[in-house]
């Protein structure tokens, strides 16, 4: 699922459905639309591009965080520039970000009050016609009509499902209603006719907070947003019902009953020559927070595997079983500059109901730029039945120590034999 979401500011192509209404809107708003470019200072060339739109008369411009993420992470390496409809360029300063909703505020210098986009006071109706605007690389501004289809279901962070042929290269561009008021911001695409927008309410909130107290340090702002977001997510998870569910012949596993955690299953019952019958349940939160090209966080993966030996000795079963659990990896992408190496511990554990003995492995690594934030990994392997095994595993990216420990505790207590 992760792979389907492509951040589309790098890709460039377009088709145009020029409708009369679209033309009108386009002509009215084009002076407040910008192409946002990140310039690598050393080489003097652009390293990424996206779109942006002015939201105040004094030069405040909204765009996606991922358009300017390289600058947010390495402010000395890059500078941000705009290109307007007349071909003028100028420098922008980063004012505020919302990493969770992929928004950023940048500001240009203005001499006289300028035209700007009005943010809508209300949300659109389902089926309402909307217009997505953006500036794909070197092709100029385009406008794409489409339909509002409500908020994306099964999603933790709010995203508008926009049915329309949104084309690549428009990240950070506005989506407006027929009155030319902004109702969303282009953020991602999921293939033909399916696009995702950040609701305009997130931008209103970000701008209002900025006007009240502008952030002193973008990195600290990001760290506190990540901490707050994982707190909200983890407390939702911890306080939602965990339904016990049977896996395979004998395993009992917890299924967290929240819409945004989705589960998939598979088994090898069709393979008659397999030495071990295996049933797998896989649950995950398919949303990750983009921090940089090689650093994602915020995703959760939970996996259970029930294994039953078919005419195997205990020792051979356990030998093959060990190979199954020997290589667990992190659930998110992160590199040397972003995180520490994993620290691991293992022990034999038994939950309070004394129902199962497991070999439990727990690993964690810390983020370099975001204090108090960790990636964690847990792996439990039952070791008390000769011919049967239950593997329980999860990874959580970007979580606080307290939440990670609480989740691990609840998870370990929830896995058992029937």
């Amino acid at each position, binding site marked *: 699922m992760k792979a389907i979401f492509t951040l589309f500011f790098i890709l460039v192509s377009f088709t145009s459905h020029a409708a009369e209404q679209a033309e009108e809107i386009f002509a009215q708003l084009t002076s407040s639309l910008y192409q946002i470019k990140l310039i690598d200072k050393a080489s003097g060339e652009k390293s990424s591009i996206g779109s942006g739109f002015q939201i105040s008369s004094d030069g405040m411009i909204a765009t996606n965080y991922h358009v300017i993420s390289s600058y947010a992470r390495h402010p000395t390496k890059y500078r941000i520039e705009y290109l307007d409809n007349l071909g003028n360029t100028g420098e922008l300063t980063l004012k505020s970000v919302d990493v969770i909703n992929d928004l950023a505020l940048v500001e240009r210098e203005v001499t006289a009050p300028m035209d700007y986009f009005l943010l809508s006071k209300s949300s659109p109706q389902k089926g309402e016609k909307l217009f997505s605007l953006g500036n794909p690389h070197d092709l100029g501004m385009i406008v794409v009509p489409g339909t509002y289809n409500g908020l994306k279901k099964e999603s933790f962070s709010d995203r508008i499902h926009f049915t329309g042929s949104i084309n690549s290269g428009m990240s950070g561009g506005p989506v407006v209603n027929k009155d030319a008021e902004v109702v969303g911001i282009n953020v991602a695409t999921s293939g033909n006719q399916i696009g995702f927008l950040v609701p305009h309410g997130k931008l209103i909130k970000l701008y209002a907070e900025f006007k009240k107290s502008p952030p002193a340090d973008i990195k600290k702002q990001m760290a506190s947003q990540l901490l707050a977001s994982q707190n909200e997510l983890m407390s939702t998870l911890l306080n939602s019902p965990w339904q016990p569910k049977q896996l395979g012949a004998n395993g009992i596993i917890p299924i967290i009953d929240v819409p945004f955690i989705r589960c998939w299953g598979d088994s090898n019952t069709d393979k008659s020559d397999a030495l071990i019958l295996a049933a797998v349940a896989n649950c995950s939160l398919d949303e990750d927070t983009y921090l940089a090209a090689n650093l994602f966080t915020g995703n959760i993966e939970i996996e259970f595997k029930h294994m039953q030996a078919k005419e195997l000795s205990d020792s051979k*079963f356990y*030998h093959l079983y060990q190979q199954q659990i*020997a290589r667990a990896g992190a659930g998110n992408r992160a590199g040397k500059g972003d995180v520490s190496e994993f620290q*691991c511990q293992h022990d034999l554990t038994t939950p309070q109901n004394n129902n199962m003995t497991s070999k439990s492995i727990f690993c964690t690594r810390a983020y370099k730029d975001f204090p108090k934030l960790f990636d964690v990994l847990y792996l439990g392997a039952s*070791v008390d039945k000769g011919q049967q095994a239950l593997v329980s595993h999860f990874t959580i990216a970007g979580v606080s120590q307290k939440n990670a420990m609480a989740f691990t505790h609840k998870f370990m207590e929830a896995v058992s034999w029937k």
Partner: protein
Amino acid sequence: MEIIIEEISRGQKLLHRHQLNKSTVRIGRDYNNDIILSDPHICPQHLDINFNDGVWTLTDKNTINGTFLENASNKKQSANQHIIEDGDIINLGKSQLRIVFRDHKVAPTVPFSAFENLIDLLRSPIALTLSIAIFIMVAGGVFYLNNPIESNLSQLLVSAIGMSLLFGVWPAAVALVSHLTKNDARVMAQLGVSFALFNLMWLSDLLENIVAFNTASHSVMLILINLVPIALTFTLLWLNSYIGFHMTAKRRMVTALGLTVLLFGGGYLVQYSNKPEFDPHPNYNATIMDPSFLLAPSSSVDDFVEQSKQLFIDAEKSIQEEE
């Protein structure tokens, strides 16, 4: 008037011993000599040793290649007219002779060590066969466990026998080297000792797994059990050299230790040099065994989670250290 002349090799090993009871001993390549040497660099009439006035004197008969005293400080000290002392070694041609008198002090008797008895036991045909049979069985068992699909007996047997042949190369090579260095080859003893030790190494593997399975991370037991294979390797090398080579106890110790350090230190170095600068994958010990090996009591979830606090501290610390 009795004199004992020993032909010895360059490595000081005895080749031939002559006990003579006459006042003049003639040495050379001719068949009319008292001691006939076949070395082509020796003259037909090479040297005489005469007993006069209670001492033996050596006379070189103007030979082409000369006669010299074996002397650490002066290699080319001529032996002509030398008054022989007990234990003198002389060089003639490419050969060496050692001259000793009847009252020559010999080294004290070496008692049979316990090792000698152990080695004798291990090299007996029954013990040797048993060791190799155990080795083949264990190797077959390991192949069976590692094979992800069903495997038949003959496949396992072929692999296991192949593996034991491979492991047999080591004792055979040691025996060959000791044979080449004019020591006893003692192939059976080398084989017996090596396979007995190989079997102990299988056992230490099993022990290591049991300990890794039953203990929590960072346990002292786990570190200790890791020393067992090192100790076994040292023992094997020590016994190999004890059987195969005559050397002082100190030198044997140094050799065995040196080789052990080379083996494990080298292995560690290779591992260390291959280590990536940053490892994005977690490294944990995933050893699990079937429930019959489950010996230790398990911890509660509370304890396990509580203990993980230290990991968070360590992770943060590793970042601070980098900065």
